[in-house]
């Protein structure tokens, strides 16, 4: 239990996925113009990463790992780990499509709020990053779940904070020097946020 809590805190705050590992920079810079859309994106990312983390873990354990039933049955001593990247990216792409169809059909209210962001997530490197890290850190099912949750909550947190700052301070501010308007000031803000997140380092 303590381990799981540590994983959750470590990856949501201390080594934040965006601000210290640079995964998912593109949506972080792209969807953070309005708090409303960043909420939707954050929710969709949490949803997809948690599911993807658990499912890719299951697939790794069953089909790809040297100790898994498939490799045991086929007598492959080295496992099929070299297929990790290919299998994971395809599973994630299919999963996102599936989640989209499922939500559209069964939970239309959730689809309304998350729907448009779902297709954008396939190529979000954080999703593939989580799947690959689960393998390289050797996490079990519960740890994979908590790791996915921690990473995605960290992402949503950074995204929401950035959207709040951009909406309230940056948008339409005349005091920003001319050459810093647009993306430079957003990157400077990200830099300051990254410094602030260093402060969580003492937590664990």
């Amino acid at each position, binding site marked *: 239990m303590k381990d799981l809590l540590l994983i959750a805190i470590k990856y949501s705050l201390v080594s934040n996925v965006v*601000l*210290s*590992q*640079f*995964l*998912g*920079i*593109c*949506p972080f*810079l*792209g*969807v953070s*113009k*309005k708090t409303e*859309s960043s909420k*939707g994106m954050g929710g969709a990312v949490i949803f997809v990463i948690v599911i993807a983390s658990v499912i890719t873990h299951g697939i790794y354990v069953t089909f790809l790992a040297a100790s898994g039933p498939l490799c045991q049955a086929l007598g492959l001593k080295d496992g099929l780990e*070299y*297929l*990790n*990247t*290919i299998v994971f*990216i*395809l599973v994630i*792409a299919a999963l996102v499509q599936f989640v989209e169809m499922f939500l559209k059909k069964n939970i239309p209210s959730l689809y309304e709020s998350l729907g*448009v*962001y779902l*297709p*954008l997530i*396939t*190529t*979000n*490197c954080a999703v*593939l*990053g989580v799947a*690959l*890290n689960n393998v*390289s850190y050797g996490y079990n099912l519960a740890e994979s779940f908590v790791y996915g949750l921690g990473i995605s909550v960290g992402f949503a947190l950074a995204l929401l904070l950035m959207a709040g700052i951009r909406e309230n301070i940056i948008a339409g501010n005349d005091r920003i020097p*001319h*050459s*810093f*308007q*647009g*993306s*430079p*000031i*957003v*990157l*400077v803000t*990200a*830099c*300051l946020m*990254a*410094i602030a997140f*260093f402060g969580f380092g003492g937590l664990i």
Partner: protein
Amino acid sequence: MNKYLERIVNGIFKENPTFIIMLGMCPTLATTTSAMNGLGMGLSTLAVLMFSNLVISALRKVIPERMRLPGEIVVVASLVTIVQLLIQAYVPSIYEALGIYIPLIVVNCIILGRAESYALFNGPLLSFCDGLGMGLGFTFALVIIGSVRELIGSGSIFNFQIIPEAYHISIFVLAPGAFLVLAMLTAIQNKLRLPSATNGDAVQSEFVCSGNCMGCFSDCKTEAAKPIAKTAAAASAAVKPEVAKEELKVDHKEKEETV
């Protein structure tokens, strides 16, 4: 000029993926802690980009329209796995330093972006040269950013010590430094009005996305079953989801204001 040479020069200068089109920000920020890491990342991406363009262009008439994107992803992922295994075998130090960012080349928008916008419409050899040019441009940019960060942060370039330890500003090799260096770079581009996706003077390309890759994401995904729009404007108007469209409009307004 020879059209093959023209593609290579175009990738390095006119449409440099990092400085001008601003694609693939994640590896740009994450792996430029030193010039050597930047070079390693750049060359790995170069290798994948060249051969993915070559293979996708060669297969462009064979892959059915509906399977285009999964097909491309499989090609890219296979190439990335090959490159990853080669690096692990021959340059273990770079493999250690880059870690997860090597398999993540799969989701680098430059690769799918070039496949979608160039390799699908041009012959294999020309696409190969385009990949070579884009890859060289990316490598060039990463080495420059890496050198700046390494010089200020740990006082050396390619591990060759220049500045004594007392004058190092080590935050430049940490996470915030990456954002700061990129902020300065885009600010200088704005100031000098250099062509860049950040100040609206960029070379018109299908994948200019003003410092974020959202444009490419939605294009790649939602256009799968539709013909590819030739210009950024047409593409965004035709297929982007509502919110992305709004964002883009705001973006254009902002750009106009800045200019």
